[in-house]
């Protein structure tokens, strides 16, 4: 579904999503600012703004990074995934306020350019206690900036999904930079352990979610299929697959989705061309395999997106013996038409 960004407007779900982000942000900012003003009345406007926005952004960052593993643990989280980039862009806008105000407050009106000041004021790069933590924040901000401006599908297509995905994996580096930015910065000044405890809980939760989701996938991938003949591997029974749905099998480290639709079985590569979504967890809609993540579509028989789109995935041979489904892990070139396997009435029973 190349150029799907043309077709997708700001539908009802997107609007709800954006309103929710907005409402949660306003609620958090109001809580932080009002409580600071009441209980810490000697505040300055700049500091409250710098802190309210930075802490909010870190919370959004945690929410955003947890969506991936959550959806892999439970499909019901999928509605959070579809517009995840809106969270990312909102987070960037909020942290831009923090970064700009910090540079204004701590580096402007001095004897050198603020950006020169950022890197030349504190030069204790070899010390933990004195480390120039603001530089870490700066590099994290650059990563978030690159991600935010390339978040649109336009860039996904222009950069190629592989480059795009790689770029967006840098979010984990950015996350690490942010944690260090906080640990080597304000944490060294504060005497109350609450902030550091919250940061640690956040980091542990994210790591745990990723590990749980990861081991589940690895377990699925580690299933060993013993019966093999003529390059085919016995993978399951035809009744194990629901109509218009698929099952995913990992053979020779290739993930393959076997779909049952219209009385036939078809096998295609499991990895969606958009953002590597799991096609095996999709559904056949209007005759097309539909990716569960963002709805890219492919024809089951040849792995091609219906025109005018140009995405293609590899196809595979699948055959039926009795009710046994046999799959050949040798991939055909992307978009190659395969006949599939006809499910006779006998098989189906």
């Amino acid at each position, binding site marked *: 579904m190349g150029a799907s960004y043309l077709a997708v407007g700001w539908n009802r779900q997107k609007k709800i999503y954006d309103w929710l982000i907005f409402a949660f942000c306003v*609620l958090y900012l109001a809580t932080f600012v009002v409580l600071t003003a009441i209980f810490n009345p000697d505040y300055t406007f700049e500091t409250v703004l710098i802190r309210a926005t930075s802490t909010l952004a870190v919370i959004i960052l945690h929410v955003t990074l947890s969506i991936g593993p959550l959806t892999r643990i439970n499909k019901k989280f999928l509605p959070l*995934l*579809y517009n995840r980039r809106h969270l990312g862009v909102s987070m960037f806008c909020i942290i831009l306020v923090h970064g700009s105000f910090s540079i204004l407050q701590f580096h402007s009106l*001095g004897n050198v350019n603020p950006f020169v000041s950022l890197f030349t004021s504190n030069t204790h790069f070899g010390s933990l206690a*004195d480390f120039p933590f603001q530089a870490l924040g700066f590099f994290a901000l650059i990563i978030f900036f690159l991600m935010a401006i390339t978040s649109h599908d336009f860039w996904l297509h222009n950069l190629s999904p592989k480059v795009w995905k790689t770029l967006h994996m840098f979010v984990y580096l950015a996350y690490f930079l942010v944690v260090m930015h906080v640990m080597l910065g304000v944490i060294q000044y504060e005497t109350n352990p*609450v902030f550091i405890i919250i940061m640690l809980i956040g980091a542990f939760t994210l790591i745990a979610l990723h590990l749980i989701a990861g081991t589940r996938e690895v377990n699925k991938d580690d299933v060993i299929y013993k019966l093999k003949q003529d390059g085919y591997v016995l993978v399951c029974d035809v009744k194990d697959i629901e109509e218009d749905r698929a099952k995913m099998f990992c053979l020779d480290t290739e993930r393959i989705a076997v779909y049952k639709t219209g009385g036939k079985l078809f096998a295609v590569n499991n990895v969606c061309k958009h953002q590597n979504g799991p096609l095996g967890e999709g559904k056949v*809609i209007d005759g097309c395999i539909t990716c569960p993540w963002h709805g890219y579509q492919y024809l089951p028989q040849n792995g091609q997106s219906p025109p005018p789109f140009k995405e293609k995935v590899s196809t595979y041979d699948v055959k039926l013996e009795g009710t046994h489904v046999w799959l050949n892990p040798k991939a055909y070139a992307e978009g190659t038409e395969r006949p599939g396997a006809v499910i006779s009435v006998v098989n189906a029973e």
Partner: protein
Amino acid sequence: MNNEEFYIGWMGKAPKSFAAWIRKYLIVLLPVIIVLGVLLALSQKKFGTGTFEFGTLTEVKGIYFNKPVPTIKVVDGKDIWGNENYITVPLIGFGKHGADGVIADLEKEKNISFEGKEITLKGTLLYNDGKLLMQVDANDKPLVNVSGANINSVGLQKIKELGIIDVKGEIVDPKCFFGVMKPGEGKPHKDCAIRCILGGMPPVLKVTDEKGNQNYYLIVGANGEKMNEAVQDYVATPVEINARAVAYGDWVVLYVHPNGLQHYSYIREHFSTSIASCMAACIK
């Protein structure tokens, strides 16, 4: 999963079971966000009481001295013996700059030296913890009046030698610390303090005694020369200073001995002998 229930983002509406699940998630997320806001807001260290009278210009009349740092001595009532009391108001510049440049420009413009003369300046006051400072900014047209003749300033500085002292503390820039920024000290503020001091703000040593009271010292080199660049690596971190202390009325100035400024480590001071003996034992 029910075969009927399949979610795709571009659908106008999520299937019921998905929508219900997300609603539950949001109901959990909402209090979490509020609790985080409360905890993070309340866990912040209390801000200092410093005040910067941003936008308010005040005229102050006093005797100007350029050394050890630019200050004016302002009459502040009389003591019980009828002698005039003076408070010392260090001058600082706009943004992250010292006052030296502005004063030098004004002296050039008037073609006289202000040293020891009575002068009226207009600027922005900042104060905290018993110390008063004034920002003089060229844009505020700070020079209101300067007397023609020298005032008899002998004795006015109330110079008193306090001897050689060793003190531990943190170097701060007085503008941020005494008024402009919260916090104007410590790690989060380190870069800014360095930038202010490199911009000509006189470095100040903040010393906290056992009772938690704070004392402040202006720091200059052994011969009264500026130490702004020399302190760069020592700002906003624990330091110990060995210096000749001289009181100029209500401000004490430290004339730091060569090598008299060192990083200070509590661990090194209290445990270095035990660490050394332990290491010696290990090597044996």
